[in-house]
């Protein structure tokens, strides 16, 4: 089947590629554009490790058709830091040991980023709800929740 042209903004840069009509956004980002931030965990929308932002909304890249992202703003964990300056969530994750194997971390950070962009002062329950679609099989949820709450109270946290 013929490939289709696709253009979108990825972490602030214009990107163009050709995709199979059936390609999902996860494969397009990882294999097509070399952004290995989003991970493959299940391919079924159940684990959250492929979470990305599409126009600011958290979406599961494995369930998103690539061609549906034409002209959209895609943001991944790879683009969270501003050069050497980490996003407050990244600082907080480091400070609170909110990663063990690190595999769920990009998806967790992205889900948390979407939460703080909309709700800068979330309650613990709102944090739990926001990451409820992200599995941490190392079961490090408590440090992750603590890190997100701490980031919400840190200066500059409102930077989405």
């Amino acid at each position, binding site marked *: 089947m013929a490939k289709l042209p696709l253009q979108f903004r990825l972490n602030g840069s214009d990107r163009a590629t050709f995709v199979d009509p059936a390609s999902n956004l996860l494969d397009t980002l990882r294999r097509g554009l070399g952004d290995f931030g989003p*991970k493959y965990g299940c*391919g*079924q929308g159940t*684990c959250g490790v492929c979470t990305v932002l599409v126009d600011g909304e958290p979406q599961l890249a494995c369930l998103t058709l690539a061609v549906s992202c034409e002209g959209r703003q895609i943001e991944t964990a790879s683009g969270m830091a501003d050069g050497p300056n980490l996003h407050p969530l990244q600082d907080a*994750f*480091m400070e609170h*040991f909110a990663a063990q*194997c690190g595999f769920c971390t990009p998806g967790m950070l992205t889900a948390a980023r979407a939460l703080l962009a909309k709700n800068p002062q979330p309650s613990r329950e709102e944090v739990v709800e926001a990451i409820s679609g992200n*599995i941490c099989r190392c079961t490090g949820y408590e440090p992750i929740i*603590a890190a997100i709450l701490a980031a919400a109270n840190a200066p500059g946290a409102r930077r989405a």
Partner: protein
Amino acid sequence: MTTMEMRKDLFADERDDNLNVVGKGVQRQDMPGHVTARTRFFDDHAFDGMLHLKVVRSPHHHARIRAIDTSAAERAPGVKRVLRGADVPVNKNTLLSLINFGKDDEPSLAVNKVAYKGEPVVAILADSEAQAQAARKLVRIDYDPLPAVFDVEETLKAGAPVVNETYPGNYFEYHERFDHQKLRFGDVERGFAGADIVMEHRYQMSPIEHAPTETNGSIAAPEQNGRYVVHSCAQGLFFALGTTAKIVDVESNQLHFIGGTVGGGFGGKVDSLTEPLAVLGAMLTGRPVRFVLDREEEMLYGSPRGAERIYIKDGLMRDGRIVARHIRSYFDAGAYTRLSSYAAIKCTAHVPGPYWIPNVASDIYVSYTNRCPSTAMRGFGVTAVDFALEVQMDRLAEAANMDPMEFRILNAYRDGDMKPHRRAAKNTALVECVQVAAEKANWPLSEQAKRASSLLGGGAGERSQIPATQLDARGQIGRPDSRNGPVTQVLPAGTTRIAPSKQPVMEGARDGRAAPTQVPRYEPQRPAAPPPPAYQPAPPPYQPPGSYSPAPVHQPASPLPASPPPAAPAQTQHGAVRFSSVFGTRRR
């Protein structure tokens, strides 16, 4: 952030207070990579011209393979190569062969038969994952289904289907002679006869899938100079390297393994499930090859924690002392050994739990069944038997009408107690653990239980001795089938080692698959060792001595012995006591 609580009041005289790191937060070196998404896991590598490998798996639990036809798959779009068992240079391996333990029993790709549902039979390499998956459906395999066995005890019975031809008795053969791991200490039958209450229960664990968020996989690619680079999820990178080198039959220096970033392992990434075929594919095609399990494969065919069935029989005195414990356990290896043989050894080393019991026996079997092979998972061989032991402890406490916490303190090892493995217990701390747990849970303990200490009351009298151990009519230490038979010989008290017989003996012989020997297993050396045991009539039922040391906590009348002055800790350069969990040098 949370900080670790340091209980410096415990073993205060032995503490190294020059701790620079423990109890403090120190940044991990891999954390910046994790939070910036720059950590490279095995799949986070791009190669031009990469092929994708998918395997065709058996739909049967147990079946003979009559014919395999891959011609249609080979002609399918994008397919570059189809691999079968004959293409694998060394198509039989067992993981622990790297340390010369066990026989090679598992093919990379099944040849004559499949022994579990999901066993790989054919591998397909194609330009895309979708093409490899499509070609999978074109492989024709003609199976002749065989009867299957799924129960760890049924499989050991006469007439059960042979799961794994390398081990025709359906049990792992230790040292090619023994059908299980055995432990004998004292005389459990005498202990049961003298006990106030005898309680036996059966415990059954389920298999557990590790379910790592990153599925098992690897990418292999040709490097310069005939070498192959392998990006691997392996938990034991050199273990995977050695296993792969053996299976593809190359020198290990031809393989360049890169890893260490594991997206969740928990024991499920030690089996080298993908590396050998990925490397073989790269060798045969000259192209990079990626072999990754999808989520369904990971959940169904990524090896789980093996299920265990455990029987525990205890002899209990009304005052709460356990005087005899017999454990019989069957470890479900699935169709192939992988690491189950090691689990049974760990299990044997762990029983009877952290409790001093004067008469102990255990028989731990590794059974083959037509299930997915099981492997390591977080304390495998120990956690399951601990579940059984601690549930049993609660039941025993209830039977003795005792508080479960105090019941554990009463029966806990103290320093110096002789373990059934004929080694003195060192660095024991269960008493203190229970005390702290009770304190945290606001669980009331008696004053005596609060005063109990791992340092007090152990290693005295009977508690420090190796008792006489019963042998059965064959001169063996308690065959399961003769457990209630007449006792003919006794291993003298204090015997720490039995010279092993060189005779091939198969205790669990059945179906004529392995012939039992008539040669006594206990062959005392002469003249250095004690004289060979003559026939001795069975001794009278075990009578626990009236007064025990330490004083049972539930007998308020007997006072605890006065605290002896603590031994001076060994001096080191910085004035601290060295601690090693391996050599147990914290005290002494």
